[in-house]
């Protein structure tokens, strides 16, 4: 079976070489097919290697086993998803991004505040903020409130920095034009500066999607009720039930890419005018 694994790997790679260097390599189907074939090849190789070399379950379960476990415990996985993603990550994400957005608009009115807050925000955005998780768990208890609080702290600064940078995007010429139209501050903000800031704002929103999930999961390592993705991962690791851990990771991966995908989908019609969306 090990030999078969290498044969599959070689075959898959050859097929991709064929497709990538073929005449059809510019079509959308081929561009989608090549990574899918690559991913499937890796999965098959993984399966064959695990079975062929008799790798014990506690080291690496086979993909078929993970899929089985995933299908068999959809109820638990769904509960964990609701607890960690919907209650923890999503509510924290909305609160954090909302607060950062409002703060950015307030900060933007004062040049002094902006010059003071931007370096501080940039500094904080690079710090290991997940470390605040034990403190916030202590303050807000074990349930999802503390997870949402960690997420708020994690997404706030990247979002703030991006929104402030976005609001500076419109040029002096454009602002002068609005002034010649006798536009008020709010008209200028709503009709020109916010739309111009949208690519930056969505950049912040997209960065924050991953941070939100990371924050919610890691915060559960510091204490949680007996439900949640981070809780399930840490306890299943303790029981050496690695198939459950992998099933949970599949859920996290799906949730993360779906979340990102939804934000990117909203971005498309909102920033249709931006060069990165037109090509």
């Amino acid at each position, binding site marked *: 079976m090990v030999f078969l694994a290498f044969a599959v790997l070689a075959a898959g*790679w050859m097929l*991709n*070489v064929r*497709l*990538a*260097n073929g005449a059809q*390599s510019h079509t959308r189907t081929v*561009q989608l097919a*090549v*990574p899918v*074939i*690559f991913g499937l090849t890796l999965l098959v190789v993984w399966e064959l290697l695990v079975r062929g070399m008799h790798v014990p379950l*506690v*080291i*690496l379960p086979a993909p078929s086993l993970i899929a089985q476990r995933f299908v068999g415990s959809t109820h638990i996985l769904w509960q964990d998803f609701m607890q960690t993603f919907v209650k923890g990550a999503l509510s924290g994400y909305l609160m954090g991004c909302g607060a950062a957005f409002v703060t950015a608009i307030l900060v933007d009115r004062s040049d*002094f*505040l902006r*010059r*003071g807050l931007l*370096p*501080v925000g940039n*500094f904080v955005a*690079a*710090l*290991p903020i*997940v*470390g*605040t*998780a*034990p*403190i916030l*768990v*202590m*303050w807000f208890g074990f349930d999802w409130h503390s997870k949402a609080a960690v997420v708020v702290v994690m997404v706030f600064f990247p979002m703030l920095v991006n929104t402030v940078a976005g609001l500076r995007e419109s040029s002096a010429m454009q602002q002068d034009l609005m002034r010649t139209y006798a536009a008020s501050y709010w008209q200028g903000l709503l009709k020109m500066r916010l739309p111009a800031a949208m690519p930056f704002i969505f950049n912040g929103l997209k960065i924050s*999607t*991953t941070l939100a*999930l*990371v924050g919610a*999961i*890691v915060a559960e*390592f*510091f*204490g949680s009720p007996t439900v949640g993705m*981070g809780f399930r*991962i*840490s306890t299943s*690791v303790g029981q*050496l039930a*690695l198939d459950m*851990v*992998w099933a*949970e*990771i599949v859920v*996290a*991966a799906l949730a*993360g*890419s779906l*979340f*990102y*995908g939804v934000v990117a989908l909203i971005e498309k019609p909102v920033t249709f005018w931006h060069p990165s969306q037109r090509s």
Partner: protein
Amino acid sequence: MKNLLAVLTVVSVIVAVWYAACVPMNIKSVLNTAVRADQVVVPQDNKTRREAGAVGLVFQNTSHIAATWAEDRPRLPAPHQVMVELWSTTVNKKITSKRSLVYHGWVTLSATLLGFAIGTGLGVLLAVGIVHSKVMDMSVMPWAIVSQTIPIIALAPMIIVVLYSIGIQGIIPKAVISAYLSFFPVVVGMVKGLRSPDAMQLDLLRTYSASTGQGFWKLRLPASMPYLFASLKIGIAASLVGAIVGELPTGAVAGLGARLLAGSYYGQTVQIWSALFAAALLAASLVALLGFLERLVLRRMGEKA
């Protein structure tokens, strides 16, 4: 100069808010201690005090405000308490001591740096492969991009346990986590950088009849430097987070993550905050070091400061 003033103002406002927040956060436990010491507290009854609002209690017991900044295990320690703890666990302790933050910081830092070096090295190699091979570009690149949208840090506890079960422990498992967290940002940034020379520049090299290797060393690699450093800064921050999270499931032996976990087990809030500040200082100095290297390299390449 004007910027410095603005930053200092913002920082001092944050410190002031922090001190102010300590008062309502800690007032209840301060009053409880005061009652036990037979001091006068406004609602003398324990039950009514427990149900009263924190801000109201502050105004009724103004004489106890100073005590909120000097508690032993406060809910929110005051800035100077954290600073004193930081000072006493770094400067006033032997660095070999188990209670020295320098010791714990070094444990975390060594895993971070090892993992970062591995992750960056492999990332650059893969990026070179992706730029020069169309198949690799089409099959690997989408996965590298998707991997940035998923919380791969969730793998951390499993990696620790699996590597432990096959007999590997110590610095290596943490370094593995650090490595894969810094790997993907570097791949994506480096591919962007190696592709940044435009068609005109590539054509020029072709008219010089430069080989692929020459084109790589003389054009693509130098052109990728700004992109590389941008992703290195993201990568080192991710590596540090990885090393810290990697220390959690091992049950708090050594390292900054272990200090965080031990502090949260035993309610040692000052210890948590000082570990957090140590981690922040570490992250900031690593990013600053990379920024310094970046300026050095870019100046050597002729960019005007």
